[in-house]
């Protein structure tokens, strides 16, 4: 393998360990990978809660565990708004859907996403969804 291919494989292995539950790349500290993974999940959850505060409020204390159950092993695709729509879809098929407030907020988000997609087709100028600030 060339240096570049080797590097690509190592980087892909780390990302897979962080967001898709793969084992840590050989030689990389497993505890640190877990810590980084947990930090990523917290950051992603905060971004989603900021985007959809009503859903976060409806879930209350259940937000953390519900989000962790949804996001573990499920890499984020797109920005926080797309993530929120996926999370909402997940919630509607979970036990959390028994709560009327959660159900209402989740349905609202999925509907909003559908409308957004439709309007994007018409308006190519639309600014892309914000991504969380990074470090």
């Amino acid at each position, binding site marked *: 393998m060339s240096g570049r291919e080797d590097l690509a494989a190592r980087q892909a292995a780390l*990302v897979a360990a962080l967001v898709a539950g793969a084992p840590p790349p050989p030689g990389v500290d497993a505890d640190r990978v877990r810590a980084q993974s947990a930090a990523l999940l917290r950051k992603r959850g905060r971004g989603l809660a900021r985007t959809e505060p009503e859903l976060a409020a409806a879930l209350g204390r259940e937000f953390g565990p519900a989000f962790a159950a949804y996001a573990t092993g499920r890499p984020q695709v797109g920005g926080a708004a797309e993530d929120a729509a996926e999370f909402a879809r997940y919630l509607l098929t979970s036990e959390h859907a028994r709560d009327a407030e959660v159900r209402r907020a989740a349905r609202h988000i999925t509907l909003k996403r559908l409308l957004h997609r439709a309007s994007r087709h018409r308006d190519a100028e639309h600014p892309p969804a914000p991504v969380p600030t*990074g470090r």
Partner: protein
Amino acid sequence: MRGGPPGGHGGSSPREIAVGGVGIGWRPQIDLTIERLSAAVDFVEIVAENVHPGHVPATLAALRERGVPVIPHGVSLSLGGTDSLDRSKLARLAGLAARFEPPLVSEHVAFCRAGGVEAGHLLPVPRTRAALDVVVANVREAQAALPVPLAVENIAALISWPEDEMTEAQFLGELVERTGVSLLLDVASLHTARVNFGADPVVALEALPLERVAYVHVAGGVLREGVWHDTHAHPVAPQILDILAAFADRARRRGPALPGVLLERDDAYPSDAEMAAELTVIRDIVTSAGTGRVRA
């Protein structure tokens, strides 16, 4: 806007100072706070991914109108990645540079995705020769696509690679030498490297090409189970301010003008008074640098 650094400074190497004074990361959540503290804010930075050049928020446009430098700061270009650079992200940076006419734009020495999967965060590049070649090529490509100079930042990492062949200072030094890129020095990241990997910040400051530092980041974080998390959601710890002072002392030896120092805050925003107090502490450190005055 392009061109050499401002002249008139002493020292043997060209200085790279692009902005001076004290700055703050502009975020929509604290735009009014920044407005109220504007007398204490010399420049701001915006997250490139979150500001569209054609849809600039009014509060931000007003700052620029008043002559406050606005530096676009990318967080997802993945200059350390082996995937080819995302042209739309480069175009965004260039578009913001055209809109705000900043002295430079900045990004990170990091990768954010691999094999088509987004990590959602800045991850450390293995410090090998092969990786350095990749970063050099990406930085050159970015430089060619941008209408203003580029500065790259050292990140706060939790993970390190067993194949590392160089220190971070060596890696950054070679990158600067080969590409002419400027540095955005994050002193909170130096603290993170000390806690998480035992890397001495003073040794790093001695080894880095400080004359190439365009501006500086400072930010708060938190210690969780022995690991430093650079959260940008906590007050700036005294140990981080000490690294800032150590940097400022060294920079002062090269001439009277110091690079600007910018406070990054991304979450759990404090009151205006607390924010103002943090900016004052930073300004005091910068202005007292090299005078031998001991900080309390």
